[in-house]
């Protein structure tokens, strides 16, 4: 079950549905009773083209692209099906085509997806849809991932017989803070209307005008400002709805697609990172029925932008008399390690982020163990509280709180007030901040100045990095591979989409350098390598392997969470 409740799950029939036999393009197959014909065909590798059907939305049946030729069992005078030599019912084929999205499987249903009748329907609908379409593919953001374009190639006639003037409709309609509408491109499938009504619970879209002049409109004086509005751009089969953020940024066929997860909250929605030449252009949701189903919130989708901020820290550096002075990584790591070694263990505190991956947290754990010996080093994570919205967003904005708890790095920030006290009392004289700003975590700047050693590792300059004696530029979520545990206990993988900018390094690489410099064990150079060491020694991850996590992740047993 996904963490968001979909009003419809046409593609997920209940496990106890009885099985029925249907004939799909001449072959008898067994499918659950009531599964719609599009899903029946999909299970056997056949695509029935469609626009308005979406497995998570109500059935509209308006695009007519999924028309197919339907057969029903012939019945004898006794009303019983007439069986052929193999014991299968003989079928009679209806002259009137039926829509696959609203036709559900029953015993003896016949389906022809590529018969002359079905093909003529597909060709006809394609011709009609293209008649008034502006055909502006060269400047359309949807080009390359447009269903109209794809189906025109596969099912279209190849030439137009439309010699009339096209219907003019509004373009560049600003319907919401993050989304734009082009009514001429719209094929009126109503997916967005149904999404807004049924899932986002913001019923503000509708159709106005009549017939060929129909157009998608927003309710007067309303804005489509839902935090889920950009999902409509994903499910829009054409380029009618585009996100203001990605519009005109990049042709989609140039984007490298990397599977990852969103790190904006503890839900961990599965995403695809679209990047090119070291630059992330967009995140789009990736289907995972155990987490986010087909969706993600706008906040998470647009949350990647800071990784390309001009405030990124790009060079390892040491603070001297005249400010930060860049250094070479081996030297910097050696000197930081040396400074750490000299400390009395209890005088060091680690302020760690619950936005780090399990692998990074595991190396932090090992680093702490190396340094602390018999005594104890203070370690805590910084909590981030948000508001749960009942859909996907969690009230915990740290993506890996569970991971940090499992690996014994933090307890959700409960010990945080103690850090300030310890610094004030002089018990803590050295602080290592990993992707966290001590100032916003409650340690005033003047207290930081009292420290004899302040090491900062992170991506964006902050108040702490301004005071830090050592600055270690780390990597953002898009620049590293690793795993996180979401709020439901799902262990999921991130994959590196782009290299870290400048001389910034993956945090696993930095932490490994420190551990080696302190004489510790080599736990691997990359996230996946560290994962196997971590799984071997952490009971909660026992038996997990990096490849075994797969693209959909693995759910931890309840007691391990």
């Amino acid at each position, binding site marked *: 079950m996904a963490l968001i409740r979909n009003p419809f799950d046409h593609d997920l029939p209940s496990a106890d549905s009885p099985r029925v036999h249907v004939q799909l393009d001449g072959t008898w197959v067994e499918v659950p009773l009531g599964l719609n014909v599009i899903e029946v065909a999909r299970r056997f590798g056949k695509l029935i083209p469609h626009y308005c059907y979406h497995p998570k939305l109500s059935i509209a049946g308006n695009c007519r692209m999924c028309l197919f030729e339907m057969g029903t069992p012939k019945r004898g005078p006794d009303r019983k099906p007439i069986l052929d030599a193999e014991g299968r019912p003989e079928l009679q084929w209806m002259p009137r085509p039926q829509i696959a999205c*609203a036709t559900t499987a029953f015993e003896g249903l016949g389906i022809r997806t590529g018969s002359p009748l079905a093909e003529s329907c597909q060709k006809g*609908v394609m011709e009609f849809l293209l*008649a008034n379409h502006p055909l502006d593919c060269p400047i359309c953001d949807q080009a390359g991932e447009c269903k109209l374009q794809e189906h025109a190639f596969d099912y279209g006639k190849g030439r137009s017989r439309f010699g*009339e003037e096209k219907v003019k409709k509004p373009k560049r309609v600003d319907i919401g803070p993050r989304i734009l509408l082009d009514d001429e491109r719209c094929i*009126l499938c109503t997916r967005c209307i149904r999404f807004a009504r049924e899932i986002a619970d913001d019923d503000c879209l509708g*159709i106005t005008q*009549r017939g060929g*002049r129909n157009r998608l409109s927003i309710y007067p004086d309303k804005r489509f400002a839902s935090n889920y509005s950009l999902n409509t751009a994903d499910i829009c089969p054409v380029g009618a709805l585009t996100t203001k953020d990605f519009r005109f940024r990049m042709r989609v066929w140039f984007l490298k697609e990397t599977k990852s997860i969103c790190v904006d909250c503890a839900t961990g929605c599965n995403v695809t990172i679209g990047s090119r030449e070291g630059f992330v252009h967009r995140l789009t949701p990736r289907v995972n029925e155990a987490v986010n189903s087909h969706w993600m919130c706008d906040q998470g989708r647009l949350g990647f932008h800071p990784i390309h901020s001009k405030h990124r820290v790009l060079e390892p550096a040491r603070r001297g008399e005249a400010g930060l002075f860049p250094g070479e990584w081996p030297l910097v790591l050696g000197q930081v390690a040396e400074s750490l070694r000299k400390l009395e263990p209890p005088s060091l505190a680690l302020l760690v982020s619950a936005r780090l991956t399990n692998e990074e947290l595991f190396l932090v754990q090992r680093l702490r163990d190396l340094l602390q010996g018999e005594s104890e080093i203070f370690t805590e994570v910084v909590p981030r509280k948000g508001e749960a919205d009942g859909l996907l967003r969690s009230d915990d904005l740290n993506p890996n709180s569970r991971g940090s708890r499992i690996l014994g790095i933090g307890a959700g920030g409960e010990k945080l007030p103690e850090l300030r006290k310890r610094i004030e009392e002089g018990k803590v004289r050295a602080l290592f901040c990993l992707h966290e700003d001590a100032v916003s975590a409650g340690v005033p700047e003047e207290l930081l100045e009292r420290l004899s050693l302040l090491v900062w590792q992170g991506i964006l300059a902050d108040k702490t990095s301004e005071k830090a004696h050592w600055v270690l530029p780390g990597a953002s979520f898009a620049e590293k591979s690793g795993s996180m545990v979401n709020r439901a206990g799902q262990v999921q993988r991130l994959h590196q989409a782009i290299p870290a900018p400048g001389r910034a390094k993956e945090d696993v690489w930095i932490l490994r350098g420190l551990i080696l410099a302190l004489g510790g064990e080599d736990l691997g150079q990359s996230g996946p390598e560290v994962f196997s060491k971590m799984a071997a020694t952490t009971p909660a991850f026992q038996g997990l392997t990096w490849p075994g996590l797969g693209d959909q992740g693995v759910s931890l047993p309840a007691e391990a969470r």
Partner: protein
Amino acid sequence: MVYRKVEMAEIGSAKGPTGEHRIILRYADEPDYTPDIDCYLRHGGYEQLRKALSMDPAAIVAEVKASGLRGRGGAGFPTGTKWGFIDHAKNRKPVYLLCNADESEPGTFKDRQIIYKDPHQLLEGMIISSYANHAHLAYIYIRGEMVRGAQILERALAEARAKNLLGANILGSGYDLDIFVFRGAGAYICGEETGLIESLEGKRAYPRIKPPYFPAVLGLYLCPTIVNNVETLCNVKHIVEMGGEAYAKIGTRNNTGTRIWCVSGDVRRPGYFEYDGGAITLGKLLYEVCGGIRDGNRLKAVIPGGSSAKVLRAGETYRIRRANSEGTMEEIEMTLEDLPLDFDTIAASGSMSGSGGIIVMDETRDMVECLNNLSAFYAHESCGQCTPCREGALWMHKILDRMAEGEGRPEDPQLLLDLSGQIAGRTICAFGEACSWPVESFVAKFREEFEAKAAQERKEHERLQPAC
């Protein structure tokens, strides 16, 4: 298209030489007949309601089934069968009865005669039908343009309530029913029964997909719903009066009861006429009852069942298979004028008797312009929900408009046929057929006119081409 002004006196409202058999319109055009309840009661009104309330609802359904009554809205579906779809033993939801008074089919003007002149007959039919179907709430969905009709119905409802013919415990029978008038906002598609239901629910009148939204199962507010035409519901009153078997003796087998035919267009005396099913031929109706073609012109074409029916061309002959008096099938050849007016023969001639709107075109009519007139209506009235009708209706109209303006192209006639073939049978509702059948039949039957129009313009078109 030039319309001829018709003098009111010409309209065939008077009885007399027409030889009509008026049941539904029996009193409607009597000089002293008024739409108030006292007049209706004086003429035996609400007696059949009293009789019906003493009967078992299932018995009324059985009478309607026995009567062979077929829906008068256009599709001709057997009313008793429609009523039988609701299983009252299993049903736990409320049942609604809706009267479809959205009469918008061009060429049809029968329901408004009943509403304007004899509203209580409709109410009596509705109350009986509601009782028979265990409905306690019924609506009259009236076309928005019929403002006066809605007022008349409101007044009739108030009169009926005052006499306890509506409301709680009707006439002491223990049966409760109320009826409300709902005015449409002026769209043809609201006459499609599921579009009507959506509109009644306060939504855009987008027809629903069937399956799963069959009105008898998931109708108004997703409850079992019966939608019947005005004339159909009026017939129920007379079936209760005569009994189903006696009613079934009127007309011919499978075309029982009377039907109101609305004749418009190029005849001397257009109007509405009520005859037994199959009792009069098209020729007799046009030449005797309606006084023949206007100005002594010759007949060119007839649309027999409202503008969405396929056109019939004068001089055509049809091979009709039908059961003869001994019950065996025979095939006979008929001319257009020989066609008896009923459901089955007109269907066998390749068209339909639909809503009974007979549109007559004489030899002066340009078929391209006639079809363009119809296609303008359908392009305007398409709801736009599903692709083929939304795009196709407007496209076909644009082609026809261009042809009528003298900008035809040689490929146009074939393109029109192709497009109409890509619409019919592939849409959510019957509007797909409604907008494509006229195109298909006009172009097929008057192809030479369409080709002449296209070819004639081709020469001009060629002249306009640059020499290269």
